[in-house]
């Protein structure tokens, strides 16, 4: 009996008929994607506001007296946690993953739409629990986003009563939500592609999201376990992470636990998390560059293998976050080596992006600006990573503003640049209207230049030795007066950049209402999501018949072809040289 793939069998696709099943309890991946996106951006704005409050204190100490040290640490913690997990992870995977995977793979929906819907609502619950921690006695936790014990759960740390518990519970809930969504993304990519869509013809966006989701499914368990153990330590007095110690002059009842264990568990999650955020950005930016330079992506296969290699390596580098933790010094040698090896596939990707632009027909429209901006910020952030990956260089720089500058550049600004590029790129498909170009360009230039004004000086004051996470620096010999001036400048730049994000919100609102109507393929792109019969795509995506794919996703400016792009679902024409299609290189 011939095996029939499930996607080809006649099976009933859930049929939404009421307003509620269409837009609220919706099982449609596109609606779920928008729900994820709106919540993630909303909670991201909270984190943005928190960062401004922090910057006000650092730039102008003693001026804003309502900012206490207690609040300051709460802001540091919640800002970091929201940005890394509740904004970036949720928006890339829950938002763009949900929207793009079925459309780019030629599926009607995710394989398990009901579970996909649950994923969003559980995610929303985790966000509510997180925000609720500001309104409980003692407020949110102020342990820093890494939540290191013992201090995270000892008296004297902000939120040691309730805040830390709500934070850990919220993380556990988020992991449940992510697992439900992530299983869907991986299974959809593996099992529900349309005819002709081989893995080696998939757009790099899908590759990035796919590998990132696998990383998430394997990395979040460590955080889940760490959260459970810390909740037990805090709630019922176990000693997993708690050694015998003195707290506020009294000996605690705990004995024999290992604080380093938490750091290992946390960073076994924490380092892959960096790539959970970065790999979707790598993939999406590849598609943006190729589309808007009207050129095939350079080294498509190498781009895929680089994504896979980075994903695999990301599991064996975690302890480079722990050079100063007191672990066995020999570990530093091993982890520095693996860390520097990651630079190889990453550099391959950067070269390929630049070579994709080389002699391309570059259209400097909105998505392209952000994509090129990403190459700049990512190279700068990546280079400082080489400094910090070496043990001897890292030791004096640890816990200074150099580190803050590095990771904001490489995993804060860079993925956000791609996110904005992606939003402007797919805005016409999602909404059916074009985003406003002028507002978008103002938004881009303010953000791009502004982030440099913020983070470049941080490297400088970091090398001076200015420690991070301090509420106030007081009178210290090694910090010159000028560093305080630099800090004021950084704060002003941060306010300007934050204002630019308001322009983005205005742009989205205005374009939704009054934007120019978009046709179905305004960028003349090749990938499947631009070939849908309706814009925005209707429920089921493809009308009566699933698309069929004949070529890879990068047939731009094919010699001898009149148009400068050939969509993936256009059959190979007789006489067309099929050898140049990278997907068929085995011939």
């Amino acid at each position, binding site marked *: 009996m011939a095996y029939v793939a499930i996607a080809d069998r006649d099976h009933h696709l859930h049929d939404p008929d009421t307003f509620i099943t269409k837009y609220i309890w919706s099982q449609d991946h596109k609606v779920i994607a928008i729900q994820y996106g709106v919540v993630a951006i909303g909670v991201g704005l909270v984190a943005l506001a928190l960062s401004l409050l922090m910057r006000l204190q650092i730039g102008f100490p003693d001026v804003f007296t309502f900012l206490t040290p207690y609040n300051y640490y709460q802001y540091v913690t919640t800002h970091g946690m929201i940005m890394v997990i509740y904004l970036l992870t949720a928006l890339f995977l829950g938002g763009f993953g949900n929207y793009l995977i079925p459309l780019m793979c030629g599926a009607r929906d995710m*394989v398990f739409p009901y579970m996909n819907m649950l994923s969003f609502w559980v995610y929303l619950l985790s966000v509510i629990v997180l925000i609720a921690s500001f309104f409980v006695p003692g407020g949110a936790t102020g342990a820093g986003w890494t939540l290191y014990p013992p201090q995270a759960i000892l008296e004297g740390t902000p939120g040691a009563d309730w805040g830390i518990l709500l934070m850990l519970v919220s993380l556990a809930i988020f992991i449940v939500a992510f697992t439900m969504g992530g299983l869907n993304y991986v299974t959809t990519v593996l099992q529900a592609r349309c005819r002709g869509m081989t893995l080696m013809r998939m757009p790099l966006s899908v590759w990035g999201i796919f590998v990132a989701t696998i990383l998430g499914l*394997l990395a979040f368990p460590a955080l889940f376990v760490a959260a459970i153990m810390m909740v037990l330590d805090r709630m019922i007095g176990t*000693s997993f992470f708690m050694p015998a110690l003195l707290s506020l002059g009294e000996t605690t009842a705990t004995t024999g*636990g290992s604080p380093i264990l938490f750091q290992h568990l946390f960073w076994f999650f924490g380092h892959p998390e960096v790539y959970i955020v970065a790999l979707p950005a790598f993939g999406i930016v590849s598609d943006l560059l190729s589309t808007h330079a009207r050129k095939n992506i350079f080294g498509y296969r190498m781009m895929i293998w680089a994504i896979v290699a980075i994903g695999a390596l990301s599991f064996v580098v975690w302890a480079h976050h722990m050079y100063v933790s007191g672990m066995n010094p020999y570990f530093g040698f091993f982890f520095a080596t693996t860390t520097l090896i990651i630079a190889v596939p990453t550099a391959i990707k950067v070269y390929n992006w630049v070579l994709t632009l080389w002699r391309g027909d570059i259209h400097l429209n909105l998505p392209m600006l952000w994509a090129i901006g990403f190459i700049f910020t990512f190279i700068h952030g990546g280079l400082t990573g080489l400094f910090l990956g070496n043990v001897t260089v890292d030791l004096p720089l640890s816990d200074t503003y150099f580190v803050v500058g590095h990771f904001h550049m490489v995993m804060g600004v860079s993925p956000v640049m791609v996110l904005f590029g992606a939003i402007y790129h797919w805005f016409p498909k999602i909404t059916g209207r074009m985003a406003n170009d002028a507002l978008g360009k103002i938004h881009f230039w303010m953000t791009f230049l502004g982030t440099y004004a913020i983070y470049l000086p941080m490297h400088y004051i970091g090398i001076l030795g200015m420690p991070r996470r301090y509420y106030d620096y007081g009178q210290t010999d090694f910090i010159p007066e000028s560093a305080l001036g630099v800090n004021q400048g950084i704060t002003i730049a941060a306010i300007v950049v934050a204002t630019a994000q308001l322009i983005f919100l205005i742009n989205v609102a205005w374009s939704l209402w009054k934007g120019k109507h978009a046709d179905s393929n305004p960028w003349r792109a090749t990938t499947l999501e631009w070939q849908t019969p309706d814009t925005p795509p209707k429920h089921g995506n493809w009308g009566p018949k699933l698309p069929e794919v004949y070529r890879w996703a990068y047939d731009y400016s094919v010699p001898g072809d009149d148009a400068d792009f050939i969509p993936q679902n256009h059959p190979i024409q007789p006489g067309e040289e099929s050898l140049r299609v990278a997907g068929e290189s085995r011939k």
Partner: protein
Amino acid sequence: MAQEGLNPAADALPAEGWQGIVDDWATDKQAFYVPWGKAMMWIFLLSDTFIFTSFLTGYMNVRMSTAVEWPNPSEVFALTFFGQPIPLILIAIMTFVLITSSGTMALAVNYGYRRDRYRAAALLFATAAFGTVFVGMQAFEWTKLIEEGVRPWENPMGASQFGASFFMITGFHGLHVSAGVVYLAVVALKVLRGDYERSGNYEIVEIAGLYWHFVDLVWVFIFAFFYLW
């Protein structure tokens, strides 16, 4: 103008050797010739493996970091019959019960695919019953240790991490077994009702079986690392 074009990737004959393996994986539509649910269960179990690995690694770590002596599991988990302490006897029975349940589960899958739905349902119920017995014995063991004064935060026999790791890891595994019992019972009812007869598809039984075998396999590791070490 939908022309019947060549679709080399979809229509080509399979290559041989390593290239054939790569092509199989990278083929269009689907990478594995299994139903969606089964693929998803495998991926979920891979993720769950990392959870239990983290638990066990954490346990081994605190066992090494604690300064107080670790209790001897052979003595702690001994039961006294007729004045003779027999080490690990309860755990041995529990393990036997759980392994047996894997056997009934495998039979249930077999009878499911043969469309023998009454036998399949009966074997599923038997599997769930074995699971319930396992959880019951675990409750008995917890009670015994609690009566002896073992708590997550303290332990009269030595390191406090002994109680903490024990209750956490066996508790988390016990939750998995309990969830599995409910899952199997639901599947058994659906088998009995003939749901899968109508859809002609007994894959759900096998998918539930995957989960159940996984929970058994995890127990083997807990048994080895916690009780035998």
